[in-house]
């Protein structure tokens, strides 16, 4: 990386830390520290919600996903706008009326302490582990591509944000997320603009779209439905799993995950919370579409210019140092010659599209598809050689594609900005996660169970220490993650293992008025075990686990309540979404 890139990177990161510290003055109370004095506008909350959801992996993985699999990943977000509407109608009025700090406080009012604690623990376990992975996952990509030390990269990825997150709590997190998201959007826009600009001079954006489409990379919508086909249920991204599974996932994530609930509880009014969520529902899908489009354009770029056989150079270097290097180099040469044919055909396709010569388009398209198949075969052989050289080699390079393109092709200065963008995207979601881990620990355990009746100042100071403690835990998890290997993928779906159950508890609270605490508690425990069994059996895509988990809690809790009877019905009159006062 050049000096100018280093300067851009360091100045950008330091400016965010400085801004975070500048904005860290808050009232020394729990309300000031965890809710920012309930003073935020909808725009700030919207950016905070988006900054919390979009981690570094979002910006690294999504373009790579479009490169390899096309744009169908966007369907994953189709259920989100619908979930925002349901949240505005049900969850938001309750949280605001009760003036809660955490989502789980409501569960004690509706059920009892043990149900509240169960939901809090499920949240803490999954969020604590996934925060460590949110540090490690982008760090390993940056470290591999830039030749950096993974441990130092982990420290920068997860360490610096602790300074302002501890100092300023929610307020500092929210304001820095706004700044971070603006930088991230500028970076992505410039990358998108430049990738189109770097295509051959006679290839317009329209031509590039047609080329991408002919190569199957603009497949936004997949409507195929076949419930009798086991493979269909395992398909992660189609309109049905996106609308139904995505709806339940988004409802659970935004409605019951404290890292998101904590964002919109900072609103100065219920109106601001609702507006921020509805705006999120409107902008999230188009935003994700544009990020994926950048990935499709990177694919078109590599149609005209030579692409490497494997985007993770560190793994390539390893095989080149092994006894299998000649075999690998032979495959590399074969892949390069296919690259040349592909580039020539891509130019012919672009010319045919310009002339609207349908016959030539079909002819070149079929040639290109044959080249693609052959390239994939050669690549598969190369990956097998990599595995022979090192059985632990990571042969999935999807997350490396976009950053490889950035580092190899973008001008000096912009590389620094794009790498800063990765750090900042990570910081935004990690800071919100630490803040929510701290608020749940403090409100649902420390203040509720362990240390009662102390002063506001005591709880404020304890909150800062707890935030710091979670920060250290997340970094330690990230450092340890390098030894986890393939388990990292399992941790990535961790959310879906717990979200369905937590959402089920809340939906029982809202809609099954007769179901009491004992029924929902055991319903949730049984469901959690069943969801883990279904996940291990690997019969269904993880998105559906949210639906199954949620429905199982509703059904099992209702059945248990039939046996338990009236004596375990709610102790107090439950507060429900349609109550007006």
């Amino acid at each position, binding site marked *: 990386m050049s000096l100018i890139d280093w300067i851009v990177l360091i100045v950008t990161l330091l400016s965010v830390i400085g801004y975070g510290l500048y904005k860290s003055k808050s009232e020394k109370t729990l309300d000031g520290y965890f809710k920012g004095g309930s003073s935020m506008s909808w725009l700030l909350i919207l950016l905070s919600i988006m900054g919390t959801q979009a981690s570094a992996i979002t910006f690294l993985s999504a373009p790579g996903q479009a490169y390899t699999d096309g744009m169908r990943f966007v369907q994953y977000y189709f259920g989100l706008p619908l979930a925002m509407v349901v949240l505005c109608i049900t969850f938001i009025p309750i949280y605001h009326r009760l003036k809660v700090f955490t989502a789980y406080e409501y569960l004690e009012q509706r059920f009892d302490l043990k149900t509240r604690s169960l939901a809090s623990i499920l949240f803490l376990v999954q969020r604590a582990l996934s925060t460590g992975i949110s540090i490690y996952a982008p760090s390993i990509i940056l470290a591999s591509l830039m030749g950096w030390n993974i441990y130092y990269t982990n420290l920068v990825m997860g360490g610096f944000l602790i300074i302002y997150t501890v100092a300023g709590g929610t307020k500092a997190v929210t304001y820095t997320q706004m700044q971070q998201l603006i930088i991230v959007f500028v970076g992505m826009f410039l990358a998108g603009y430049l990738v189109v600009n770097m295509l051959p001079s006679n290839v317009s954006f329209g031509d590039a779209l047609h080329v*991408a*489409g002919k190569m199957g990379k603009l497949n936004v919508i997949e409507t195929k439905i076949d419930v009798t086909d086991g493979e269909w249920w395992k398909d992660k991204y189609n309109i049905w799993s996106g609308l139904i599974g995505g709806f339940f996932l988004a409802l659970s994530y935004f409605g019951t995950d404290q890292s998101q609930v904590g964002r919109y509880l900072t609103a100065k009014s219920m109106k601001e919370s609702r507006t921020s969520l*509805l705006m999120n529902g409107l902008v999230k899908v188009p935003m994700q579409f544009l990020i994926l489009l950048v990935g499709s354009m990177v694919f078109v770029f590599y149609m005209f210019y030579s692409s490497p056989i494997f985007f993770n150079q560190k793994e390539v270097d390893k095989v080149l140092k092994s006894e299998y290097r000649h075999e690998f180099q032979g495959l590399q040469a074969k892949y390069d010659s296919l690259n040349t044919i592909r580039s020539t055909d891509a130019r012919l396709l672009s010319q045919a599209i310009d002339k609207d010569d349908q016959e030539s388009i079909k002819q070149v398209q079929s040639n290109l598809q044959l080249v693609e198949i052959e390239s994939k075969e050669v690549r598969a052989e190369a990956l097998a050689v990599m595995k022979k050289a090192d059985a632990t080699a990571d042969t999935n390079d999807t997350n490396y594609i976009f950053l490889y393109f950035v580092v190899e092709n973008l001008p000096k200065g912009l590389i620094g900005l794009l790498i800063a963008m990765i750090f900042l995207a990570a910081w935004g979601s990690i800071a919100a996660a630490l803040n929510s881990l701290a608020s749940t620990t403090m409100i649902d355990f420390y203040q509720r169970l362990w240390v009662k009746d102390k002063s506001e100042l005591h709880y404020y100071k304890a909150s800062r220490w707890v935030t710091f403690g979670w920060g250290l835990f997340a970094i330690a998890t990230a450092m340890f993650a390098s030894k986890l290997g393939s388990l990292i993928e399992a941790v990535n779906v961790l959310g879906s293992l717990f979200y369905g159950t937590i959402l089920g508890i809340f939906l029982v609270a809202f809609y099954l008025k007769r179901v009491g605490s004992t029924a929902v508690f055991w319903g949730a425990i049984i469901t959690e075990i069943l969801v883990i069994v279904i996940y291990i059996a690997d019969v269904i895509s993880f998105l559906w686990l949210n639906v199954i988990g949620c429905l199982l809690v509703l059904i099992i809790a209702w059945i248990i309540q039939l046996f338990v009877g009236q004596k375990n019905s709610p102790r107090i009159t439950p507060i429900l979404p349609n109550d007006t006062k």
Partner: protein
Amino acid sequence: MQDEQKDEKNWTWAYIGVVVALVLLIVSFYLFTKHFS
């Protein structure tokens, strides 16, 4: 009370707007996929 009812009515329209926007988005994505394939 009347203000509250009016406010709720406005929110209902906002919710309908979000759902309609999603439907329009999905339809335009479908046409986009068809057009460029």
